[in-house]
């Protein structure tokens, strides 16, 4: 018991030291997430890219609604085929656009939100968008987990993309 505590403390000290020795930018990357960041989304609601690809391939009936809630400029360059742009989740106008898009949908509808503007813990859009849908009573909302960004974790991996509005 005591040995376990010592080992755990040692590991904690080691990780803490390693963290402090990293550059400020890397510390910032792993530092406290901004309020409302994607970190506020429960782990159970996260969807990995490969899982989404599989979902899109296997689901024939009742396809999920795919909504990009980040930058329109990024959406125009590349987005997941079939997805729609729903406004930036970090802006009140974006949240309103999202609300208008989903308002008439059944609350059990599977909705997958994604952004990929920046590293997961820095994304300002997904957290507020997810919270909005939850507050509206949607019970089947997932967030696509893109650790770095849409380019690195989706497009560069060869998953399908399309351009345009």
């Amino acid at each position, binding site marked *: 018991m005591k040995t376990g505590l010592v080992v755990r403390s040692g590991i904690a000290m080691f990780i803490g*030291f390693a963290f402090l020795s990293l550059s400020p930018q*890397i510390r*910032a990357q792993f530092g406290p997430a901004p309020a409302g960041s994607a970190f506020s989304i429960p782990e159970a609601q996260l969807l990995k890219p490969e899982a989404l690809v599989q979902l899109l391939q296997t689901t024939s009936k009742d396809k999920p609604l795919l909504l990009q809630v980040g930058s329109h400029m990024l959406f125009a*360059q*590349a987005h997941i085929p079939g997805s729609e742009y729903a406004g930036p989740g970090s802006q009140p106008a974006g949240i309103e656009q999202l609300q208008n898009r989903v308002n008439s949908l059944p609350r059990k509808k599977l909705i997958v939100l994604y952004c990929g503007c920046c590293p997961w813990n820095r994304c300002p859009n997904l957290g507020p968008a997810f919270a909005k849908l939850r507050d509206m009573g949607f019970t089947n909302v997932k967030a696509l987990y893109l650790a770095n*960004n849409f*380019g690195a974790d989706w497009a560069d991996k060869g998953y399908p993309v399309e351009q345009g509005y």
Partner: protein
Amino acid sequence: MSGIPKAFWNAPCTLRRSFTVKLLLGLCVGVSAAQSPVATTSLLHKQAPQFVRTDLENRKLDLSAYRGKVVLLDFWATWCASCELEMPRFVAWQTQYGPRGLQIIGISMDDDPALARRLYKKMKLNYPVAMGDEKLGQLYGGVLGLPLAFLIDSQGKVQAQFRGETDLNLIEERFKSLLRP
């Protein structure tokens, strides 16, 4: 456990495990892989795509006019917190290394120019910034996530691409090696 950042414990369990393993491996090899610049296969050692824009001060911004200088072309946006973190260092670099031939150029990928202007003034950026769009993004291989910067040498060739949060000391070392003594 007070030595461990709160965000670490806030992260999903699987991510924590993954991060811990990567961190330990990274320390074993000396440098975290996240700090390494990722070289683009499409633009590296090729001529940087030319563009002409109007900057936020309504001046003409022609990339070809900077031939002879080392250009750090930085794509950013106001929604990119990491980009904002980098800006004070870029301002300092422009002041310190400008006389040796460094020119930083910012391209805002914001949808709303008003937001970009506000941050441009707030951060007192001392280098030109123009608004980007999807065409410019695609010209540079697709700006599908920020931060993103290109290091362009005095001949107009792309010497490095920095994707994501990159150690700024590493960027500084790279461009210093291209500057006049």
